[in-house]
């Protein structure tokens, strides 16, 4: 994938998550902190999707954005139900905050774009974002989660986000033509 390096550079989140220090600290998070990161990461993608629905006029981008909202909301509902069942509450932490900070910057940046420039930026960010989050979930979170039910939910979530990654690849190709 020749675009990967520019995409990764474009995604601030991707940069954050591949830095070795952040990766080590991410590995030290407990289950409830991990759950918080995932919940925040879901909500960030939902926020990007709402921005896309507001700005883009491309029907394929709209369809993709609606799928992001639908699926990430479904995962968050499951996560909340599980936390409720476990009688636990997700715990805010440095990584959740860093993700939110980066998302604020990206939303500001994308909000200034229109037309094809927005579609391209949105699609590329979706790809970079899903690659970064999937890497974090697969290689850092899942091996470190202790609760079996939480782990199972992350495995199911990873399946969904990998499908999104593939879908985002299609979107990037489509808007680059």
């Amino acid at each position, binding site marked *: 994938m020749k675009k990967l390096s520019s995409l990764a550079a474009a995604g601030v989140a991707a940069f954050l998550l591949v830095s070795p220090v952040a990766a080590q600290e991410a590995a030290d998070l407990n289950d409830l902190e991990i759950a918080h990161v995932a919940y925040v990461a879901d909500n960030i993608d939902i926020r990007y999707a709402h921005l896309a629905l507001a700005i883009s006029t491309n029907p394929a981008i709209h*369809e993709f954005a609606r*799928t992001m909202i639908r699926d990430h909301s479904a995962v968050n509902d499951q996560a909340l139900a599980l936390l409720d069942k476990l009688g636990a509450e997700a715990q805010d932490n440095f990584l959740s905050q860093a993700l939110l900070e980066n998302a604020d910057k990206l939303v500001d940046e994308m909000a200034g774009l229109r037309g094809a420039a927005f579609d391209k930026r949105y699609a590329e960010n979706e790809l970079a974002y899903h690659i970064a989050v999937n890497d974090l979930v697969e290689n850092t979170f899942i091996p470190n989660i202790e609760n079996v039910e939480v782990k199972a939910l992350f495995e199911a979530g990873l399946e969904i986000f990998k499908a999104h990654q593939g879908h985002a690849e*299609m979107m990037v190709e489509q808007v680059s033509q």
Partner: protein
Amino acid sequence: MSVRNRRSVLAGGVAALAAALSGVRVAGAHDGEDHGAEGAVHHLVTIERFKFEPAELSVSVGDTITWMNADIAPHTATAKDGSWDTGTIKKGEAISITVAPGMTGGYFCRFHPAMKAELEIDA
């Protein structure tokens, strides 16, 4: 649209769903069919891990197909030519359609277009 939809919401997931559907003569996913009183067959397609299973299904007009979603993500089964559509199938839900003439051909998930499958109507 001549299709008949039936939606059943089952909190207990796949096992409960299979048990509930056994009352309406659903086949196992592997042998793929179960003959009802008038020769109509009930087919079950499971949607799991972003795949339709079985991905290829031979049906006859008048048969019933039930799509059952075992994923957290909502899916649809939608004809490529737009002629039929189950609508949204949420986690743990199943939707059935009675096979009408012309339903043969490819279908996909509107939400996740990489998910594809095929119906073939036997003469």
